[in-house]
Structures are given as C-alpha cells and as structure tokens.
C-alpha cells in the first residue's frame, strides 16, 4: 500500500508565500479530495510532489521516496497536471508510445490505456486538434500507463462533457477501490461528495481541515457547506 506524504512544504514566489508548512498524508484505498480557493497552493503542492517545483523547505514523498529518485517514476505515480503538455503534431497514440518507451513499458499498454480512456478512435489523430476534454482523457491515459499505485490529478473534470464527468467519477472511484492512493484537486464539491472518502481543505498554503467526507457532511450538512464555512475569510490570492 503506497501513501503520499507531504511534510512541511514551504515555498515563496517573490514576495508572496505560496506554501506555508503544507502537511498531509494521502492514504490508499480511497479518493482524497484536495480543495481550497484559487491560489491556496494546491497546484504548487502537486507540482512539488512530482518534482516539477523545488520546495524552499519540507519534503514530499511517494512510498517514502522523492519522485525524482523513483526508477521509472510513472510506474510509481501517475499524474494529470497539465492537459496541454503534449506535442501538437504528434498523435495521441504516439505521445503515449514515447512515454511508454521511457518507462520500459510495452506498446501493448498504450492500446490498453487508450481504450480505457475512450480514445481508441481518436488515438491516431494529431493531439494538437484535441478538445480540452480529449486532452484530459489523454492525460488520464498517460497517468494510467504505468499502472501506478498512486494517482494525482489536478482539476480532472475541466472540459469534460456530462458523459465524461460520469466516466471520470467512476474511473477514479474504481482506481481507489483497487487500493490505490488517489489525490484529486477540484472545485466541484458535489462531485467530490459523491466520490471522495476524504478531503484535505487548504488555504494560504497550509491545511485547514483534513477529514473524512462523511464526518464533514455530518457536521455541516454538505461538503459544499463545510468547504464554504472552513474557507470563509481565507482569500486565496494574496
């Protein structure tokens, strides 16, 4: 069972404090929602877990190791951060093929994840022509490529059509039921309420609440009510 451990992350961008001691653990077997106002530090935290941003202090580890120290890292953690991070002239399938090659994975994995993401038909078209929803699906395919025990997704519902939203919800729930650690940042409280077992609420670069969804619903009637109450007065962008 693989956890994500975020311990005392701090980061300044010039004069503004992006992360101010961000600390939480993501447990396997459930979807953990990662919520907070714009600018609260969600994306920066995800980028630090994945080694894209460098913390001023603190650590972020997957299975006790930094992402950059993992051999074939996409087999340990899959990420959907930026759906536009692709070569526009390359087909979706070829995008996945070079990723698979970099992780010592066979091309057969590429077709498996393309099918699972509903891109089997569009896989041979240039990825530059994909809609946002299709790019999200391609990003999910890339995240699933290495069959990783940990998944991190930043706003995965953006740009999906209603059928896509249902698909994403079922997919994430299924991945958690497999025993994976699934961390999902989102602004869609109703989606998370149906899907997440746990939420980490952040503001001003640190954790405000780290609690079970049922617990919060019991105390506040709905996840949205809990969120609004917990983040009241916590403006995101400073």
């Amino acid at each position, binding site marked *: 069972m693989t956890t994500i451990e975020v311990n005392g992350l701090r980061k300044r961008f010039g004069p503004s404090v992006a992360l101010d001691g961000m600390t939480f653990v993501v447990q396997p077997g459930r979807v953990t929602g990662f919520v907070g106002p714009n600018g609260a530090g969600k994306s920066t935290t995800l*980028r630090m877990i*994945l*080694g*894209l*941003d*460098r913390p001023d202090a603190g650590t972020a580890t997957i299975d006790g190791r930094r*992402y*950059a120290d*993992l051999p074939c*890292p*996409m087999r340990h953690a899959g*990420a959907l*951060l*930026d759906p*536009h*991070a*692709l*070569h*526009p002239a390359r087909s979706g399938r070829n*995008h996945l093929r*070079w*990723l698979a090659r*970099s*992780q010592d994975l066979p091309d057969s994995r590429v077709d498996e994840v393309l099918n699972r993401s509903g891109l089997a038909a569009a896989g041979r078209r240039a990825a530059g022509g994909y809609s946002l929803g299709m790019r999200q699906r391609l990003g999910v395919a*890339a995240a699933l490529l290495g069959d990783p025990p940990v998944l991190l997704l930043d706003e995965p519902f953006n740009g999906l059509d209603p059928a896509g939203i249902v698909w994403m919800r079922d997919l994430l729930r299924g991945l958690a039921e497999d025993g994976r650690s699934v961390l999902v940042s989102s602004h869609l409280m109703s989606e998370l309420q149906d899907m997440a077992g746990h939420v980490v609420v952040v503001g001003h670069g640190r954790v405000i609440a780290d609690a079970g969804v049922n617990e919060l619903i019991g105390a506040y009637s709905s996840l949205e009510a809990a969120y609004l109450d917990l983040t009241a007065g916590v403006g995101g962008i400073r």
Partner: protein
Amino acid sequence: MVPLALALLLIAGGVALGRDAVDPVQLRLLGVRLGQAAVAAAGVQMLAAEYSSGLIRATLLAVPRRLDLLAAKAGLLTAFVAPIAVLGVGVAVLGLTPSGDLVRAAVVSVLHLILIGLFGLGAAAVVRNSAAALGIVLSLLFLMPMLLRMLPDPDWQRILYRTTPATAVQAMTTTVDTAILPLGPWSALGVVAAWAGGALVLGAFLLYRRDA
C-alpha cells in the same frame, strides 16, 4: 529536423564555389559559416520547442532527473549533427588537392559545428525560449564580427577577437596568410568549446535549480 537538412545544404553548397582562389579551402568552407546558423537552430529547438509547446512538463514527469535529460539531449543532438557535418564538409571540399591544411580545416570545421549545436542547446536551457536562445547564439556568431570591426579601441578589439567565436570559422578554415589572424584553428576551436561548455554548464545548473 528541418534545420539539420538546411545545414547540410548550406555546408555542402560550398562545393559550387570552385577552386580558383588564393585559398580554395577557405572558399569551399564558406558554407560552414552559413550552416552553423542552422545547426545552432537545431540545438536550440531540441529543448526550447518543449518549452513553447508545454511538452517539457510531460517530459520531466517521465524523466525527472534533469541532468540526465540534458545529457541525453546533448548526446542525441551530437549523434544527428556529427554525420551531417561530416557529409556536408566532405562534399564541400570534394576535388580539392588533399593536404594537411585541408584535413585540419575539415576536421576542425566538423568539430566546430557539433559544438555550435551544443552551444544552442545550452543557451536554450539558460533562457528557455527559442527566439531568445537563437538570438544570443546568432548575435555572437554574426553580429559580433560586425560590431568588433567598429570598435575604436584596438586593444579591446584584439581581446574580443581572441575570446569570442566571432571569427572562429575564419580562423579554422584559412590556410593562406594565417599570420594576420588573431587565433590559430585549434585555439579558435578551444574558444568555441569554452563558450559551448559554459552555456551547457550554466544551463544544466539552472535546469536543475529552477521550477519547471
């Protein structure tokens, strides 16, 4: 790959210049002066294109060890540029009478082209933008010689001629009246190597330190 095809055409194109000159080796290798711009563009694009498309974030998730990534790109770039430089320079000097000077000029030119590609890659790692990186490299190679000619202070002029790649190709390919040149061919190659190495080391340091 378009810049490399262009580089091959430009470098090899020297073969059309004939051999009726005081210094036929230098004449034939004039294409290296043009071709180096295309090689620099190939080096820049190898990394900067990933920043302009956003692909770099996918790349760094697949290969989070950034120094390994830069080393792999440098190796791949060299593997592409080297055969093109050998072929281009080889075609350019076809039919000239073999001599020590000719072989030296050809070998140094090939090595120079490889270094210029790496210089472009290093510059791209430093500024992370195609236009800016190519601007830096091309300014040093093409704008610098013109500016140096206008410099009033002869001491500074001499120092800059000896420490920048401004007249490197001229120094590398001239086989007649070499006494008037500020640098010998191997020293000129050394200067270019220092610039390329410096750009790569600074680029590697910044790539390692900066947020992606």
